[in-house]
């Protein structure tokens, strides 16, 4: 049996969400913030590695971003992934979800004979969760989103559980397919010292614009239907505070009186 190829799409995000706006430029101030692999993507990497324990498979990481995104790819290879591809080109910059999904789909075609594409549920910085379904559509493949469990159930078949708000679904897909995973489905492994060492011997390929078959009108800002027109920090609305005073018993009595006056109790 031919080994499977599992591609895991990952994104590098700032190490913290505590970002601020530069009052002068009105741009996001991300100075001094290191990049890490999007935490939800680690669940996807872990799931790929577990599937590779089940059946012979090559786990390939794929990311789009500047050259320093190679760090996240190394991190994933230190977890145990076999290879990494970074899609890095100025022409890709400023892409929204649609333009990002296009380049990633074209790269997956280029990798060739990919059986399964995995995504984390969403990136913790932009929080869209859109790129997975977009890539599934561009590849004309079935999609299973927010999978709560995932296993190979046949030579060319996966079975996943999906937890909707009110329903638990069991879905069976014939490969190739695209799956986005919930963070609840596994606990990502830590890189072992040996795997960290090995990760530097694994192939990390950088693909630029000319390495892929691309329609330039669909790239970067030009290929992005959406535009961010304003970025700001939300300001909670202030209210007039009535202080409750004295011992807890006294303060509780004041509150009960107030809540009764508002017919809240």
């Amino acid at each position, binding site marked *: 049996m031919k080994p499977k190829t599992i591609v895991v799409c990952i994104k590098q995000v*700032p190490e913290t969400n505590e970002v601020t706006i530069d009052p002068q430029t009105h741009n996001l101030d991300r100075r001094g913030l290191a990049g890490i692999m999007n935490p939800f993507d680690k669940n996807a990497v872990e799931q790929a590695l577990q599937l590779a324990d089940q059946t012979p498979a090559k786990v390939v990481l794929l990311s789009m971003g500047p050259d320093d995104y190679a760090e996240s790819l190394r991190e994933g290879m230190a977890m145990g992934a076999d290879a990494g591809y970074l899609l890095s080109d100025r022409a890709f910059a400023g892409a929204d979800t649609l333009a990002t999904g296009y380049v990633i789909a074209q790269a997956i075609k280029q990798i060739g004979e990919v059986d399964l594409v995995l995504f984390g549920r969403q990136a913790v910085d932009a929080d869209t969760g859109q790129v997975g379904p977009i890539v599934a559509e561009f590849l004309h493949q*079935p999609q299973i989103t927010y999978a709560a469990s995932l296993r190979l159930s046949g030579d060319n078949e996966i079975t996943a559980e999906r937890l909707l708000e009110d329903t638990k679904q069991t879905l069976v897909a014939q490969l190739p397919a695209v799956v986005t995973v919930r963070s609840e489905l596994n606990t990502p492994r830590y890189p072992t010292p040996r795997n960290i060492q090995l990760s530097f011997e694994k192939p990390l390929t950088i693909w630029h614009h000319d390495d892929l078959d691309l329609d330039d009108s669909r790239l970067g800002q030009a290929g992005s239907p*959406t535009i961010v027109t304003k970025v700001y920090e*939300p300001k909670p609305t202030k209210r007039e505070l009535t202080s409750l005073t004295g011992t807890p018993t006294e303060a*509780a009595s004041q509150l009960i009186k107030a809540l009764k006056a508002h017919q809240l109790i």
Partner: protein
Amino acid sequence: MSKPELWVIAERRLDHVEPTTFQLLTKARQLAGDRFHTVAILFEATNDHLETELQPYAPDEIRIVRDDRFPTATDAEHADALAQLVAQYQPNSILFGATITGRSIAPRLQAKLLTGLTADCLDLRFDDETLVATKPSYGDNIMCEIICPDHRPQMATVRPNTFVAEPATGTAELTPVTVAFHPVERLQVKTATPVVNTATTVGDASRVVALGRGAANTATIDTATRLAEKLGGRIGVSRPLTDLDRFTHDDQIGQSGNTIHPDLILNFGISGAVQYLVGMQSAKTIVAVNSDSNAPIFDVADYGYVGDANAFMTALLAQFV
């Protein structure tokens, strides 16, 4: 010339319409004024009459696709059907609930239509016929206004409980429409079991007892649980407490979690990170108890007490009749 169309995709939850749909229909009416034609798009089985649940929110029109296959259709099959309707009616904008279902179908449709989709929006407005969608980023610490100037339809998913559903007067025109059902052969839904979940989510509760880092010990949580029961409400937590085994992200308020607007929220041991405050500031009455008198939560509270959370809750419980 006919008015541009503003669509709301009705979502089904078991045998009913998902509540976010009503919230979006209400917002759509407010946005539309007399400039837009508001349309609810409903997929239902031949014996269903879910339009009766939509009618109180009075969209101008309800377009109904009756086909027994749609209630259990997969994301790609839904997206395919919607793409056919878009080709036929050319709507200006389409709104989905940012539920798991909405967030799965909408981007698939976006990719078919090669247009823009803004995720998990917290506000919407129109500048002329351009939809301006407010999208949180960085765990709700940053807000972005996003437009899609040159592509139609403009699409957005909207976070549940962002808007309040209000019935309206008006009679929706009911229009049966047909689309071709194109089955996706390589994906089968083998089983679909209703999850019996009698507990409401924190987003549905009208009274919330919210706990943060300063109210995280077992005794305090137990007292808070009794208080929530007494109030007929529910416990909610800020992010640090989601690390405890007894809470999940479903219990979290703010930060890509639940935006809530209960009648009453009692905050214990919560200092008040921006995303938390934004997530609960629509509550009608806000009470805060914190041992730090400088905690930002007091800036947005109606009633505040500086002191120990557990002692205050115990005193409160003792005085309830």
